[in-house]
């Protein structure tokens, strides 16, 4: 089993390298070139040319890439011309915030979506199924930024139950932190819950028609065990696959939710960087996010080997 994981890790590293090449190509295509992305100079052509020479950007592309790559590897991602903070510093400040949002919504989506799908699959055609499936279809179709706006209108503006935005770090109060995170996590988690519910429902229904379910019943096992242990276990692969596929939409969701709820995370940073032409920050964010995705996909891949005994164990 270790081999399988190792192989995937190697592929992930290769992908990461390729991704950095893509980013470098994009950086190269920027108006002003790579100098603009690594230095704090964006306006003065003379200064740009000077830093270009310093970074070796008048040399062959491959050399440029190597120099750029080693700078990136050392965490020297440049300085934001707007905030005058180092990009690395900005990123590390905001990563925990966005991580909390991302993990919170993932958890919410899974905890709500998977059991809902199982319950619907266990009662096909009944009221529970129709309601759950209908809600899932709605959650799937609703644009989450609109959903967020509506939620704010209802819960913050009219009911005054929850804050309308912002962020409170945990050391300043766990309860406050959670109350600020609740609506954003719900808004983000809804889409995932909807997709997961539908996929789980389909997989469990299919599993329930399998022969091994008949065997489980023939053993006299209680129905809940047949559904939640035997059927669900074999649906996990598709569930994990869906989670992996949804990760791509998560970044778009994070950016919009951070915008709507004014949360000072990576998403907000990205948007500001685009509006303000803050190329160093943009480069840092893109690199970080791409790396994050590759790692996340690797984790999904690894969990396959853990779930499916056929992948990790060769027939003996």
């Amino acid at each position: 089993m270790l081999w399988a994981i190792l192989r995937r890790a190697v592929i992930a590293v290769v992908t990461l390298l390729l991704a950095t090449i893509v980013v470098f190509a994009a950086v190269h295509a920027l108006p002003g070139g790579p100098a603009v992305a690594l230095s704090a100079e964006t306006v003065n052509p003379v200064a740009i040319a000077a830093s270009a020479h310093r970074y070796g950007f008048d040399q062959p592309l491959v050399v440029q890439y190597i120099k750029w790559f080693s700078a990136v590897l050392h965490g020297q991602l440049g300085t934001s011309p707007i905030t005058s903070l180092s990009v690395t510093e900005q990123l590390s400040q905001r990563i925990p915030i966005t991580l909390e949002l991302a993990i919170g919504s993932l958890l919410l989506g899974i905890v709500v979506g998977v059991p809902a799908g199982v319950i619907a699959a266990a009662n096909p055609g009944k009221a529970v199924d129709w309601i759950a499936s209908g809600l899932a279809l709605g959650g799937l179709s609703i644009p989450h930024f609109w959903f967020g706006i509506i939620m704010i209108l209802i819960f913050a503006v009219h009911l005054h139950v929850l804050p309308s935005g912002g962020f409170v770090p945990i050391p300043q109060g766990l309860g406050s932190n959670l109350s600020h995170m609740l609506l954003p996590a719900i808004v983000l988690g809804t889409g995932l819950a909807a997709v997961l519910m539908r996929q789980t429902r389909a997989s469990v229904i299919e599993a329930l028609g399998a022969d091994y379910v008949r065997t489980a019943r023939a053993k006299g096992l209680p129905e809940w065990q047949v559904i939640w242990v035997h059927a669900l276990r074999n649906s996990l692969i598709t569930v994990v696959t869906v989670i992996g596929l949804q990760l791509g939409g998560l970044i778009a969701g994070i950016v919009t939710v951070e915008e709507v709820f004014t949360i000072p995370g990576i998403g907000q940073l990205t948007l500001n960087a685009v509006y303000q032409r803050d190329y160093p920050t943009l480069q840092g964010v893109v690199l970080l996010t791409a790396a994050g995705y590759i790692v996340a996909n690797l984790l999904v891949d690894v969990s396959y080997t853990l779930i499916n005994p056929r992948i990790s164990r060769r027939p003996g």
Partner: protein
Amino acid sequence: MTGDVLEVRDLRVEFPGLIAVNGLSFSLAADEVLAIVGESGCGKTLTGLSVLGLEPSGARVTGQVLLRGEDLRRTDAKRLRDVRGAEIAMVFQEPMTSLNPSFTVGYQVAEVLRRHSGLRGAACRARVEELFALVGMPTPARFLRAYPHQLSGGMRQRVMIAMAVACDPAVLIADEPTTALDPTIQAQILDLLRGLRERLGLSVVLITHNLGVVSDLADRVLVMYAGHRLEEAPVSAVLGGAALHPYTRGLLDAVPAAGASRRTHRLTSIGGQVPLLDADPVTCVFSSRCPLVADACLAAQPGLREALPGHLVACVRAAAS
């Protein structure tokens, strides 16, 4: 009959537009092996499933299934779940798909022990090992943590059998237990079943279309056709040439005699196909394919009569053979 472990009375299994099992009755005495024989589509698998209440959804089942006098089709769900695996167990045809691919075989056998015998932990594992040895698996301890896909077909079927006999049931229903296996493995599994039946005093309902299996294992034979019982007799009578129903004779004639000279023995087949009835038959169900068909056969489906002691047949032409 009293003393019978299992008795099925007037079992009728219907789907929209199809009567799969029509008024089937049989009984199984203690320590007896009854073979239910027929072509694909005759309803024998559904019969086995209906005994345990495992028929597919959409099936309407009427009739009685008496386990030592208790009607299983009238008990509550909890009692039925207590019976399954503990008093009546079932072995299915396809061991690969009948075992959950995500759990070890040890776990799946332990499951039935935990459910019915209350065994846990080390005692449970020891019992699973015991069972694996009982069904003839080499190095049983090693197989505890094996997954179904790591085992051969014969091994998987041994696991299914171990699972079935784990809680010492009174009745074992074996639905085509060897059909999906290689011929050499088939013989091994049949040996195993025979041995288990002797050691554990099992009563077995053996569902099969393979007459070779019948001769190897069964005491009595029940021939099914289009959901009806056409003949029931001791195996020695049926296979010894005393079969009475034209259909049974047709089945026997269609079996190539191993070693028989090719010049003298031609395979004869029964022309046509098993009908799928959507209503109670108004003629003998076999009349459309029967070589002995006469006007009387087209009047109604013949009832069962005891042509000889212990030998039942549903044919008006049978005595004339």
